[in-house]
């Protein structure tokens, strides 16, 4: 079992620097989730950890040893490719068993591993099919299976559940978590699903354009985002941003949401952006502010209410089944303790 230590990593495609001097320490046995917008370099980072692309600078240590130039096979890594990369001429069973077979794992052991992975991934009836005869989600599961049977020290998962239905995804999420708990290997996991990120991660890394924005536990990243980008990136529906100006007293805020802050947090005259998550807004008749409902999105177990606050939209999460319709004027209040405050210029958290 081994941690991964990345220092000053930079990767270029031609002139396009995709990873820019990235430092990252993944602890042994950690479940690290990579989050970031499409094209920010997550897959590239995984590929470089696996040794599949040449780095243009920096170093990668795995389990304490410098692996910057090591062969992928030497790194003790299992990986699920975003594009699956299944062996098209082999059956599902062969796809999964090929690696261990070559590695000389005893036959019985291979069979056991494949059977277990297939069972877990619900692939058992498909073991003798070729990839071309599978549906998208089935292919993805084969890709997961192929990585799992390797029982490597470090697993790299690149959006492994993106093409699965919610139910299966939930099951596999649980299985992966169990697996991780049992084996104790290091996991680096790319996902776009925030539920996945929240439930699986011991820490979350948020990236943007090849640069790490914040590293922290799910709660830290969600509740105390380091900057505007992280705040806006996490959470669905997204956090509400409201501009505000600090008054002369250095406490009271001017703008559409006048508030009083604790002393010393901000400077007089400073331009701020307030981040308010929709679930921290309460619709209550004695609320301090009022706004008009623009749109209501029913979501099954909750509804999202979009209100007009000044010039901008403001979303509120409502959990009770009360009927709200567009045009209603409602009073609301916010939980000030959960408020995030950012400097409008540097976009950093204050």
């Amino acid at each position: 079992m081994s941690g991964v230590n990345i220092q000053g990593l930079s990767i270029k495609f031609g002139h396009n620097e995709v990873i820019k001097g990235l430092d990252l320490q993944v602890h042994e046995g950690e479940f690290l989730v990579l989050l970031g917008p499409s094209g920010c370099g997550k897959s590239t980072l995984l590929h470089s950890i696996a040794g599949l692309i040449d780095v243009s600078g920096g170093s990668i240590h795995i389990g304490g040893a410098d692996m910057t130039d090591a062969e992928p096979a030497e790194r003790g890594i299992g990986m699920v490719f975003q594009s699956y990369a299944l062996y098209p001429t082999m059956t599902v069973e062969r796809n999964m068993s090929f690696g261990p077979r070559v590695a000389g794992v005893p036959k019985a052991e291979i069979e056991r591993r494949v059977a277990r992975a297939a069972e877990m991934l619900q692939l058992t009836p498909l073991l003798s099919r070729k990839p071309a005869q599978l549906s998208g989600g089935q292919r993805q599961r084969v890709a997961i299976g192929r990585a799992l049977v390797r029982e490597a020290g470090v697993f790299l998962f690149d959006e492994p559940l993106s093409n699965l239905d919610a139910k299966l995804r939930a099951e596999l999420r649980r299985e992966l978590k169990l697996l991780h708990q049992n084996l104790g290997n290091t996991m680096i996991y790319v996902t776009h699903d925030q539920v996945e990120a929240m439930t699986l991660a011991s820490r979350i890394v948020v990236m943007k354009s090849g640069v790490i924005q914040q590293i922290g536990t799910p709660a830290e990243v969600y509740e105390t985002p380091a900057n505007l980008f992280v705040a806006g990136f996490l959470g669905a529906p997204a956090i509400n941003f409201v501009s505000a100006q600090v008054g002369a007293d250095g406490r009271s805020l001017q703008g559409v949401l006048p508030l009083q802050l604790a002393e010393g947090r901000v400077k007089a005259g400073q331009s701020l952006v307030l981040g308010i998550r929709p679930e921290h807004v309460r619709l209550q008749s004695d609320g301090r502010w009022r706004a008009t409902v623009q749109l209501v999105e029913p979501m099954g177990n909750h509804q999202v209410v979009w209100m007009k606050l000044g010039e901008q939209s403001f979303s509120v999460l409502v959990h009770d089944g009360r009927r709200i319709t567009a045009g209603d004027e409602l009073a609301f209040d916010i939980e000030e303790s959960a408020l995030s405050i950012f400097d409008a210029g540097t976009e950093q958290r204050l």
Partner: protein
Amino acid sequence: MKRRGLAAWGALLPLGLIVCVGYVGTVLWTLRTSVSSSRTFPKDDFVGLQQFERLLDNDRWQHAIHNLAVYGVLYIVAAMAIGFLLAVFIDQKVRGEGVLRTAFLYPYAMSFVATGLVWQWVLNPDSGLQNAMQQMGWKDFSFDWIVDQDMVIYTVVIAGTWQGAGLVMALMLAGLRGIDEEIWKASKLDGIPTWRVYLSIVLPMMAPTLATVFTLLATGVVKVFDTVVAMTQGGPGTASDVPAKFIMDHLFGRANLALASAGAVMLLLTVLALVAPLAYARSRQKAQGGH
């Protein structure tokens, strides 16, 4: 569905014409000629299967067919193996790829009339390799296959492989470069040794290319002629004779069109007998589903 077929058939029209007129036509003509008594010119009399009887009676033809089998198997195996190896090694991002590729391919560009002669010299025990080695002090070195009745066909295999392996390499190289890089990455991660990747993953993925190469070589085998003529003239004696040489001898020098046609027909029937079961099996497999 119907319109779809129409456009494609339209595009296949020239091919259809070529097949019907060029191939079916000439095959029928050859068939017709093979049951006549034509000599220099085609005659339209009918002599039954007389030419075929003569053919089957002929030692030289029998021997030629036997040689063809030996040559065919060895040549195809050798050319494919060497061609594939060369392609694999050239594909290792080596320097001077262009020069190497040309070095392997140039035999294909040279008229075999001249290169066959060079092979004849090189293999000749008096002037060639054997002599050179013995002069260099390697007294026991002996390599005289080309003058040996039983071994001469193998020298034809050597020269044929030398000539054909380059083309196989080019085809294989094109096939290799078509393999998705991600597959390579996946297999690297799986820790599969390179040779094993080639053998177990790349080679199966190149099945269409292999089929192309095989067919190409097989047609070359059946028609092999220049190589033998330039190197051995079918000799010593008729030891390295091949059917195409037999056919050509009768077509031109011996002015026996009918017998030559019968030879061509026999050759075609042999191919058909080898290919038909294969094609049948494949079509059955397709009908039963799967791909």
